[in-house]
């Protein structure tokens, strides 16, 4: 099957190698491209993009993520504490 005709999600995400890959969209003109996404790291890619964006083995090392590191990313803006209910002292 050619890359343009890929329609099933790849086994792993090119960026974080999770197996939570999904089809996000297919081209309105049938069979031109498919967009995939990862439900773990939210990476998205199209079947017609250059190899480095589609293939986990060719995905640039500098942009790779590990699923276990996602929880420790810096938070911005920080979440403020809830205000006390009106009328409380």
């Amino acid at each position, binding site marked *: 099957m050619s890359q343009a005709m890929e329609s099933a999600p790849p086994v792993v995400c090119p960026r974080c190698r999770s197996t939570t890959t999904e089809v996000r969209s297919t081209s309105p*003109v049938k069979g031109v491209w498919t967009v995939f996404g990862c439900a773990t790291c939210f*990476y998205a890619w199209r079947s*017609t993009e250059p190899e480095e964006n589609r293939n986990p083995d060719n995905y640039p090392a500098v942009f790779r993520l590990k699923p276990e590191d996602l929880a420790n990313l810096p938070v911005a*803006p920080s979440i*403020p504490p809830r205000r006390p209910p009106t009328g409380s002292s």
Partner: protein
Amino acid sequence: MRAYQDLREFLSVLEQQRQLLRITETVNLEPDLAAAACALTQIGETSPAIHFGNIAGYTNAQVVMNVHGSWPNHALALGMDRDAPLRDQFFEFVRRYRQYPGELERVARAPWQEVVVDKDVNLFDLLPLFRINRGDGGYFLDKACVVSRDPDDWDNDNIENVGVYRLQVKGRNRIGIQTVPQHDIAIHLTHAEERGEDLPVAIALGNEPIITLAGATPMLYDQLEYKMAAVMQGKPYRVVKTAKGLDVPWGSEYVLEGRVLGGQREPEGPFGEFPGYYSGCHKYPVIEIDRVSHRKDPIYDATYVGRPWTELDWLQAMTTSVPIFVQLSTTFPEVVAVNALYTHGLVIIVATKTRFGGFAKAVGMGVLTTPHGLGYAKIVIVVDADVDPFDLKQVMWAMSVKVNPAGDIIILPNLSENLLDPACQPGGMVSKMIIDATTPIAPDIRGDYGQELDTPQGTDTWRHKLGALMKDLHK
């Protein structure tokens, strides 16, 4: 001055002025669109906008890029002559800015209500999304206006906010939003989260050129971008209210309505950002989209972001320089012009009269305390009033001869900074520098500044005469 009712009208003017290129050959979403827009930024400072009407996989999608990306396009956005010099664009922008506030024109219906999708929203199907830079973590909306209100003062129009924030489409109806703490929407979100609520937002995409400029302007918290756009275009700004009560431009191509989910943060990024570096990944707020409306045959507007200069630098040129100038001159009427063109004002050049020794350094510190200075303005160069801050040859002359590093460089440690500045240590903190490149005056008696060279008598007359003759030479 001119009021464009929508993006389509502005594109037709760009086309008449030969500032729009239509690409009719079939192009791929990646990497063609970003590559073409990047190439335009390399061609020069008079590049046209670019329209793609034949995109692989679509029958009728349209994408425009580089709409603001040159001095002629910027001048035409302001309704000025396409050849208006940079300095004239600055002073005209200042003149209009000082007329704030203008009026809103509220109407009930808008063309973007023609097509409505409020079930099974899938943004990947509804928008011709594409990757800008190869390391981007996905597909971003990078030129949309995000509208929000303050939940603590919901009906106060003046603190409604229209801002251009980067938005990552992360799921079918899920968008990540970058709300830098220095930006107004971060205040709205904080208030919503303190109340334990979601924050309603409307995302307007594909707009006439003025509201995008206003949305990119660091105005005061109680100044409304629509009222600024009204004075910029010389006509009340036409808006339509959403069901939630948010004002949206009448002329938008797409409108996405949803909620920033209170108390939630999710991985976002990276995205190639304005400093010319990827942003890295953070946990940012998340928007859930409930409804998408759009015009028939909508036009999708996007910006290429790369190592400066790109379209972003025109979007952030006068919109950064002018508010700093206006805010600074309330304290220091001696200031004559501000150039914040470089990397969203990480470097700022101020031209000012000086009243006594040390005055220029106080002006430099004033820049750091403007709203924009709190998150940018890392290096401030202060020059004399007779040095044109927009002419870098003159600025470099002033730096060459008027600076003695022993007394003219001030470094202020650990000030607040936009976390996208890669020099921050830690993120959000940086040291800042003021370079006093003005001539020392009493009681600052440093240096040996005698008589400065001036021009021979009659130079101005000869310049006009020779300019006309040179024009004839090129006929």
